[in-house]
């Protein structure tokens, strides 16, 4: 696939060993990078044409004691047919990460949802409040974490 190879080369010569590129059968590009320079990569991709942040997924790796945060970005104009998922890991005890509101202003609601259900704080996000759970819920009540168990029949 021409566009994918060209995109991968552009990324690897710009960031070299800081990122790990992998690609799955459906033509989705998965990038893995360190927390320190994930914003730089996001900014670079945003200029490249990836102007739409679909959503932010938070994964709870209980055993390795870390959270994974995946930024799903799409480009509609010049890189068609290649969705990109950028994955970074943060420590589970102090779940803190930079906000991306300056690159993607529409991350406002996605970051509030991740904070609400998973408990990851976004530094620099002014209106960080609960989105889906009632406000009077206890402070450390983050139901999507793996250690919060619910029993469902079966």
């Amino acid at each position, binding site marked *: 696939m021409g566009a994918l190879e060209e995109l991968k080369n552009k990324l690897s010569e710009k960031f070299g060993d800081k990122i790990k590129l992998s690609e799955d059968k459906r033509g989705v590009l998965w990038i893995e990078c360190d927390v320190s320079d994930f914003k730089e990569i996001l900014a670079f991709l945003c200029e490249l044409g990836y102007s739409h942040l679909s959503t932010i997924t938070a994964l709870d790796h209980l055993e390795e004691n870390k959270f994974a945060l995946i930024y799903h970005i799409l480009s509609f104009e010049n890189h068609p047919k290649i969705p990109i998922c950028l994955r970074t890991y943060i420590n589970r005890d102090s779940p803190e990460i930079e906000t991306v509101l300056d690159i993607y202003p529409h991350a406002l609601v996605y970051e509030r949802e991740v904070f609400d259900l998973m408990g990851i704080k976004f530094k620099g996000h002014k209106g960080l409040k609960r989105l889906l759970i*009632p406000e009077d819920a206890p402070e450390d009540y983050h139901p999507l974490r793996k250690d*919060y168990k619910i029993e*469902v*029949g079966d």
Partner: protein
Amino acid sequence: MLEKLKDKLKRWALRKSIWAYHLNTGSCNGCDIEILDAFTPRYDVERFGIKLVGSPRHADVVVVTGPITAKSYERVRRVLEQVPDPKFLVVVGSCGATGGLFQGSYNIKGPIDKYLPVSAYVFGCPAKPEAIIDAIYKLIKKLEEG
């Protein structure tokens, strides 16, 4: 004797024009569009005098859909207090009756019959408009006998 006459008159008046009020406690809006369908030309429940009203204050039958989610619980309670007294609850959809697919979720405050007696259930996910009309029709018949 006067008491019996007054009661019969009240029940006759209620039977003739039931005003329904639709209360969505966080449902997936499958049952809600079926309830709305019952008021559109094809099923048209206005033939029985059933009218969809905008506010709980002039409602006789409260048509409830959805498992009560944590956030809408407080508002549901406040709305149900405002419905005048001879009120009947018709629960539409299996998630209203027993929590259906959403049983056990952390954000569900349980089916509504934990808090208020429910007079009629319409199962099905979502229930067909005819089933909703059938339930309200059965309710009217039950009202006649008292």
